[in-house]
């Protein structure tokens, strides 16, 4: 593919309430590029505009200004949606249909038919572990089962680009792992996945890049690695008679702080200094039992970025 999976230019959306008296800026001048074959995680607090963004791209809502292309085509082009899969956040299926009929309905709407469709339905029900429930009306499905069915629905037409709005919402831990595996498998077949989520630890595990959205503005975008860069900070577990010395004499040159339970925090400026400290510890006969480099989790970064942006907005 020589075009981007998603490309937006100054995409903005203002919702106006009845009579246009109250305006909500759901999305402001969003510029974002998602490369094909990647998993992109879109993060942000409740009401940040994540769902609005996806709805704009799919023509469910219309932009107030700006524009976007998906799979190289303008978003006003409805036919390209045959290459797209979507799992909405509060999806509702006709309660009177059975699991397999729901897939049949949406499959036909995506332009599939006949034996191909039936095969695909069986295959996907198997993938999301709903084969047993195939002949049960969806009104009897549990929340997690609905979510699994929703995922199957989103994958029916072998989409190139898949939008998932909180796909693991209401799914048990095993199911979540299974969904993660499904997403990674899709990526390995060079599908592009756009994932809206609050579950940062999950996003961290599978995404290539993430964007952080707050109040309709994109405040950070990059790879998970870039965002959660390692710091020159280590957690050490020490043992030996001399350890008490360090405790009694915190004013040492060792940059160590006791954080309890025999653990110490060590801040250095580079590896040279790190090695110097380690040499000193060893020379005092201190035993180093464990050493872990500290890094910010995506959650730490997320919280500090959102706080920063809130402060910025207050000024």
């Amino acid at each position, binding site marked *: 593919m020589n075009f981007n999976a998603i490309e937006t230019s100054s995409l903005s959306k203002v*919702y106006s309430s009845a009579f246009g008296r109250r305006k909500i800026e759901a999305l402001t001048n969003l510029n974002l590029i998602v490369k094909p074959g990647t998993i992109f995680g879109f993060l942000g607090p409740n009401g940040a505009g994540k769902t609005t963004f996806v*709805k704009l791209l*799919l*023509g*469910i*809502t*219309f932009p107030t200004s700006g524009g976007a292309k998906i799979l190289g085509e303008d978003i006003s082009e*409805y*036919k*390209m*949606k*045959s290459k*797209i899969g*979507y799992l*909405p*956040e*509060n*999806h*509702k*299926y*006709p*309660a*009177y*249909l059975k699991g397999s009929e729901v897939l049949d*309905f*949406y499959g*036909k*709407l*995506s*332009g599939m*038919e006949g034996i191909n469709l039936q095969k695909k339905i069986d295959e996907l029900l198997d993938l999301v572990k709903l084969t047993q429930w195939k002949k049960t009306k969806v009104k009897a499905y549990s929340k997690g089962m609905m979510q699994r069915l929703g995922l199957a*629905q989103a994958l029916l037409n072998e989409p190139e680009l898949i*939008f998932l709005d909180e796909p693991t919402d209401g799914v048990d831990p095993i199911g979540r792992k299974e969904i993660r595996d499904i997403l990674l498998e899709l990526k390995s077949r060079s599908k592009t996945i756009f994932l809206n989520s609050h579950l940062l630890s999950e996003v961290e595990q599978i995404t290539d890049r993430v964007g952080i959205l707050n109040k309709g503005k994109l405040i950070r975008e990059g790879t998970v690695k870039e965002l959660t860069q390692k710091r020159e900070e280590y957690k050490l577990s020490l043992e030996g008679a001399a350890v008490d010395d360090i405790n009694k004499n915190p004013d040492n040159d060792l940059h160590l702080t006791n954080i309890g339970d025999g653990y110490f925090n060590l801040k250095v400026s580079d590896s040279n200094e790190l090695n110097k400290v380690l040499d000193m510890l060893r020379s005092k006969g201190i035993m180093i039992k464990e050493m872990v480099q500290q890094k910010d989790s995506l959650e730490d970064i997320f919280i500090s970025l959102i706080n920063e942006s809130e402060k910025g907005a207050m000024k």
Partner: protein
Amino acid sequence: MKNMLTITWYSLREAMARKVFISFFIISLLTIILVALILNMAGFVKVFTSGTQNNFTEAFTTMEMMFISPITLIGILMSIFSSASFIPIMLEKGNIDLLLSKPISREQLLVGKYLGGVLVVFINIALLIIGVWLTFSIKFSVWNFGFLLTIFTITFTFSILYSIIVLLGIATKSSAPGMMIAYLIFLIVSPVLYSAKYKLGVFIQSSLIKGIVDFVYYLFPKTSELMGKTTYDLATGSGITNYQPILTSFGFLILTLGIAVVIFRKKDF
């Protein structure tokens, strides 16, 4: 096109699931049984078998119409009631999002849903009319096929009212306004305008008032004429004697649906 038919087909499924067919069917069946019982009273047969052939057909059809008119009236009222929530349900959060994410245009979606509603009513009305017709025909061994054409005028009448329900359903996302306006037009506005134009018209002196009455008359759909004269003419085999109510009402239907499509195309969900 195929997508549109999928929507139409699944509207039938929806109606079936919401017991529209079964309730309609039971009412139709009861009606047909009632008709059969009444016809079994010997007196009627004697009235019909005397008199000339022409008189006979007319009297026979009048008899059929006497039964069918109140029933179809109820049929239309029931149809409006049972189809009014089709559009609001489609527009519910989580449902419309998914539909719009499929490769189907908004106009196809709306027209497909509209046709679904009309098809549901067509099937129900057809079952009812064919049932009554069979009962009569078997009883009297008279096969008045013209009577079957009333299926179309009645469905057409409904399809006009349904376009109003669709328009207001799209605009308000709820079923009550459309239902109320449809009932209002069907039960009050159309019959009143018909009387104003054709019965009171001769007494109106002022050409301004006359003009206004005419304008309003032509503007609104002529459901009472369609259900009355047009249906009766077809049933008695006189054919369509006046195309005006059909054409102007059809114009109304297209206009209403067109506005619904325009609103739907611009709406955020």
